[in-house]
């Protein structure tokens, strides 16, 4: 039984490798690295690592803070998830470093000043801003405009040139997809668990009663 788990692990590790070897012959060095990163984000091992870290971090945050409303809790969950994602990136990409450094800045601000500032900052992060709505409705060159929007979406990449921005966006999209997959699995597992537990509680109550 334990061997089955280990086999599963090995096969998961073996999966990304043949893809890597095939690609290395074709791509140049830079693109090779980018593809390796993409494969890394798609691999099962990475997702498992992320899920385990996420569960641990969520438990930790759960114990630390227990605010009443769901919105604040969800924001806390989201921030933890992003933080763990940035840690999983091992700081090689710009957006991961930006996420981690921005969290630190927020904590400093919380210690020093009122919490209103952190709320606005967090709200600004989650809310999308329409680039066309501004002081002047000037039509910038279309590419430039979209570059700016993309820079605002990817954390820490506001003033970045287009090729670097595209590279960061590639990695960010791959990481986000992994995050979505892991969180979806976790949420479903937990809701299933809860449903099972509640069913069990009901059935046990009925047994006791009768």
């Amino acid at each position: 039984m334990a061997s089955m788990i280990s086999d599963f692990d090995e096969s998961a590790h073996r999966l990304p490798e043949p893809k890597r070897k095939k690609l290395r012959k074709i791509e140049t060095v830079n693109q090779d690295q980018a593809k390796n990163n993409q494969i890394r984000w798609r691999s099962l091992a990475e997702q498992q690592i992320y899920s385990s870290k996420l569960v641990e971090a969520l438990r930790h945050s759960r114990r630390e803070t227990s605010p009443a409303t769901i919105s604040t809790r969800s924001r806390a969950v989201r921030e933890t998830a992003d933080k763990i994602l940035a840690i999983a990136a091992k700081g090689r990409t710009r957006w991961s470093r930006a996420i981690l450094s921005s969290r630190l800045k927020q904590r400093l601000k919380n210690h020093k000043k009122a919490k209103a500032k952190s709320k606005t900052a967090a709200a600004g992060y989650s809310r999308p801003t329409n680039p066309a709505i501004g002081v002047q409705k000037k039509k910038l060159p279309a590419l430039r405009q979209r570059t700016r929007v993309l820079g605002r979406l990817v954390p820490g990449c506001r003033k970045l040139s287009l090729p670097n921005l595209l590279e960061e966006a590639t990695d960010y999209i791959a990481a986000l997809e992994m995050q979505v997959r892991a969180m979806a699995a976790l949420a479903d597992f937990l809701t299933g668990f809860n449903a099972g537990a509640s069913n069990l509680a009901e059935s046990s109550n009925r047994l006791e009663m009768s």
Partner: protein
Amino acid sequence: MKPIGGIEVRSMNYSHKNVDIGVQAYQLGEEFQMLMAGPPPTGNSFTALLELPANQAMELLHSPGAADSPTELPLKRHHNMSHRSARNHPHDCAPAFPSNAALNEGATKYSGISTAAAFGGGGQDSPESSSSANAMKVKSEPMDSGSSPNSLPHTSNPTVASKNEKHTKRKEREKGKATNKKNKTAANDNSKEGERLPYVHVRARRGQATNSHSLAERARREKINARMKLLQELVPGCSKISGTALVLDEIINHVHSLQRKVEFLSMRLAAVNPRIDFNLDSLFTAGNGSVLESNFPSMVMPLMWPDIQMLGNEQECQQQWHLGSVNQPVWTRQEGHQNLIISENSLLSYDSPANSVSLHSSQQKMEI
């Protein structure tokens, strides 16, 4: 050897004059020829030819003096030259040209010496510090000016602009030759000089503008296009769209939708969260009661998995099929939990629920 091709044609013109000089100084240069019989490399035979005249030029210049002192200088020159030629740089013949040209034009002996000295020093530095073609361009310039201090600053400042100019000059020579490969030669250049230089070498294709600005622009555009291709593969539905702006639109929409999904899921997790501690702790503590618990989630979960398929890619689904024998591919999609397979086994064969429980708890321990 192709870049040498153009130079070779010109070297033949010079070699005639060199032969004349050689004949004149034959008696004096005989000793040097014997010395040079060893080192001259097999590949560049004409560099040996050209080394001759340089040494003999030095010999000529120093001939009125004693025979001993000039021997030392040309010997050092010879060492430098052979050292350089041993590296197989075709552009080492270039230093010989201007010196010969200066001599043939009847320039003053002193300026000839100074240029030769400059090239001797510059020639040593250039293969070490910058690329070989840069040296070629550098050597061609002082030919007109004939002043030594100009050559050295050129060798010590390899800027991007100079490299582009060098490449344009080389391309202008090579335009007659049709074999200009684009990125493969750039890749080779990268592999050769990648450790030394941080710049990407781009070659112009045949029939394209060789202006330095357009070269830089083209390199930039190619970088951007390469990255856009990667992104197009990543974002579903982008490969059909043509045009950078629309593709960027799609990418922005995709990123935004992913972020919204993360928010939605975090809200879901926050709602579910209060139960986490309770459930996992109960798993560890309870004994037989956990058997039912583990089976219940296993029955509920397969119903949930079809939802997840919408969120992810189909490709991973197909890849995961190769992992062992699985009946329903939906279950083995890359989820971070191995209890999928365990739960599937428990559903199909109810013989050992105890095993599944122990696996379940052990898997939970692994997670945490």
